[in-house]
């Protein structure tokens, strides 16, 4: 300041001028920053205009039931994980390109989907089609609650690729659309089909003449024999994911009392976890701990270590889904005689409501279309291609996974013994397929919520009644949290 005062005698005027100069300079300094601020996370949304502009369409006809624009580009993001992305580039995209040669497909693959796409969602400029999977998966329930996903109803109502007289909806296995439905609107298209059950070491069972148990009493008898032979009867996913034991627990309860008990749990009804069938099933699972039928030390293990020990013959039964064979491929390959198979969870009582063959199965591997997508109709058409018989069968052959398309894996020769036993179990189940949705709707309820409660049950640290009480407490927390959007289902 002193120098400017020296320069001109008219102090007051100069002061004002200096002040104004500085304001101007400050404005220059902040100018670029200010512009930057406007374009970053908290800059506020100015993309409402974009959202209002209607998605491009084409003429609806028998050849083009969704009415897609035939000359607009389509941007596709595939998760480059267990399935890779070759099934998309070498199988689905050529099929799509053959029918729609003027639609340019911009294919991208990513390992961390969330890291790449979250900023694009914030900017209101997401791709048209996203395989939202893997470790970096974006939370579906949140995307739905924020209104960021496109309603897939037109896809399911459209005629299927192969037969114009059958809708896409009718070409899918039961439960497929439901698995991606939030409060009545289908937002997520789940392509692969996973079968859950108890996986056992078939080699050990056959060698020792142990029968595959069909009731819980038989299970306890077999476990006694296995333990007497010096092998651990059961293993679970240790400190990482004790919740895997919920799967036989809830599946057995559903077989005993019917699938309605699962609806009550999903709908967060008070007392749902205290259902007699659920308690009986929990008591059965707790018996495994009471009798020390779990692999010693399993409660302190990483899940891969626990599963690895199972695959190396240190335990016989392991709860998992049909990905287990792929996941433990290394350990399985070590021993050529090792063979695994899946069995439906045993019946708790002879007068169970559902037959033994009932399995838990659900569509997984989610694909979504963002609400702000520039070409949502073409993305839906791409899904329709994926759900064609050829595309689904090719997918099964390439990545060794079942798909949600009815009959698509029928002719496929599955070499993997585990997956083929799962396929057989799914076929034997027919319409007796159950599933529950609360882990998808309320991820924190499943983990760490129920997960940690079941962990304590598996260490036999708490009684069944305490387990029920604590599960109810977890459900109550979710029920009372107004910030969580609630979902319900009828059946």
């Amino acid at each position, binding site marked *: 300041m002193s120098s400017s005062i020296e320069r001109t005698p008219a102090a007051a005027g100069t002061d004002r001028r200096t002040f104004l100069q500085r304001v101007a300079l400050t404005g220059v*300094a902040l100018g670029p*920053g200010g512009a930057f*601020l406007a374009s970053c996370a908290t800059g506020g*949304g100015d993309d409402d205009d974009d959202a209002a502009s209607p998605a491009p369409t084409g003429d609806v006809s028998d050849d083009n039931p969704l009415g897609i624009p035939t000359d607009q580009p389509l941007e596709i993001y595939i998760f480059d994980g267990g399935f890779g992305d070759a099934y998309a580039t070498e199988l689905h995209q050529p099929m799509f390109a053959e029918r729609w040669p003027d639609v340019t497909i911009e294919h991208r693959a990513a390992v961390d989907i969330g890291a790449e796409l979250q900023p694009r969602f*914030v900017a209101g400029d997401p791709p048209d089609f996203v395989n939202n999977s893997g470790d970096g998966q974006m939370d579906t329930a949140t995307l739905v609650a924020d209104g960021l996903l496109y309603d897939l109803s037109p896809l399911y109502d459209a005629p299927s690729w192969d037969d114009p007289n059958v809708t896409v909806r009718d070409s899918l296995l039961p439960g497929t659309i439901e698995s991606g439905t939030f409060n009545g609107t289908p937002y997520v298209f789940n392509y692969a089909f996973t079968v859950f059950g108890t996986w056992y070491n078939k080699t050990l069972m056959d060698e020792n003449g142990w029968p595959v148990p069909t009731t819980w009493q038989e299970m306890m008898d077999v476990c006694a024999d296995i333990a007497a032979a010096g092998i651990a009867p059961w293993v679970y996913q240790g400190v990482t994911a004790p919740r895997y034991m919920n799967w036989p627990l809830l599946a057995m309860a559903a077989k005993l009392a019917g699938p309605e008990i699962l609806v009550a749990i999903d709908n967060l009804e008070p007392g749902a976890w205290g259902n007699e069938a659920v308690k009986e099933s929990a008591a059965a699972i707790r018996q495994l701990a009471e009798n020390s039928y779990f692999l010693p*030390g399993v409660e*302190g293990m990483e899940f891969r270590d626990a599963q690895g020990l199972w695959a190396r013959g240190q335990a016989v039964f392991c709860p998992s889904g049909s990905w287990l064979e792929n996941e433990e491929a290394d350990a399985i390959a070590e021993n050529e005689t090792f063979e695994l198979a899946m069995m439906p969870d045993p019946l708790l009582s002879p007068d169970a409501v559902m037959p033994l063959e009932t399995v838990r199965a659900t569509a997984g591997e989610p694909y979504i279309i963002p609400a702000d997508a520039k070409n949502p109709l073409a993305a839906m058409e791409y899904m329709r291609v994926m759900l064609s018989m050829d595309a689904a069968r090719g997918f099964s052959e390439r990545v060794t996974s079942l798909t949600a398309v009815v009959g698509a894996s029928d002719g496929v020769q599955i070499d993997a013994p585990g997956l083929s036993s799962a396929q057989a179990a799914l076929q034997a189940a027919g319409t007796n397929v159950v599933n529950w949705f609360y882990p998808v709707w309320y991820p924190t309820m499943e983990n760490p919520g129920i997960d*940690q409660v079941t962990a304590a049950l598996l260490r036999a640290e708490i009684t069944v009644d305490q387990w029920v009480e604590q599960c109810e407490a977890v459900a109550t927390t979710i029920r009372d949290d107004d910030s969580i959007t609630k979902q319900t289902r009828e059946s």
Partner: protein
Amino acid sequence: MRHGKYPFILAFLLPPVGIYAIYMLSPYIQAIYISMTDWSGFTSSQTFIGFDNYVAMWHDDQLRTALRNNLILVLVVPVLTLLLGLFFASMLNVGGRRRGGAVTGVRGASIYKVVYFFPQVLSVAIIGIVFKYVFAPENAGGILNRVLGAVGLGGLQRLWLAEPNYLIWIVVLVMTWSFVGFYVVLFSAAMQSIPRDIYEAALLDGSSRLTTFRKITVPLVWDTVQVGWVYMAIQAMDGFATVHIMLGINGGVQGAGDVLGIAMYREAFSEADFGYAAAIGVLMLILTMVVSIVFMRGLRRERVELA
């Protein structure tokens, strides 16, 4: 210089200040704003909800566990590391038997110096995974339990990572192990600059090892200790990588090993609640600043001028 002095200065100041404002200050300010919204992290706009996130934080039991664990880390890890670091460094530099009247380190000091530094060149990810297997059950390759069994202390074997009460202490141990090496080297450097004749004079006057350590070594390296202390406290305030790799995103069994960094990451990326995560971030900012101010003030001492 009178004319054009300001433009000249500004020309030099603007780029760095601008970059600092855009990449440092603006994220802070934005984070504080986000902490007062219910932003999920996906939408282009946010709803302002005032201090609701901070109220929710007050009632969050899991966050209390995380806070308690961070407190343990901030208090225990620096103390352990500094004591061990000072002890090892003085052994390496002035702890040796007197050979011909010279003050030296213990035999093989130069080798130890390299060995102590090993953990520092390992990435945190490797340290986390290695220690996961140190504490694993015996049949899953657990090194500690195996050693305990081998030396006849089988009674001390535990399922370390399945026991909620042990989790944070395991983290303390691992962090201390990985920090000590660096501080040994840091303190060694400081001790090398202490003139040898001071030690020799003290020894001639008949002072013991402990007395020389307390009255000469510690006061003369105190500046370095102070810097190390603050730096370490901030590192311990974080603890994210170690906990995430060893115990997972929920902070281990019953969330007993949770720390604030993990809680923030979990809220943001697994529970899609960036607003709440930002509120935890602001809490961490305040705590880190308080911790550094307290440590700086608490440790202030007269500076000793070396001749």
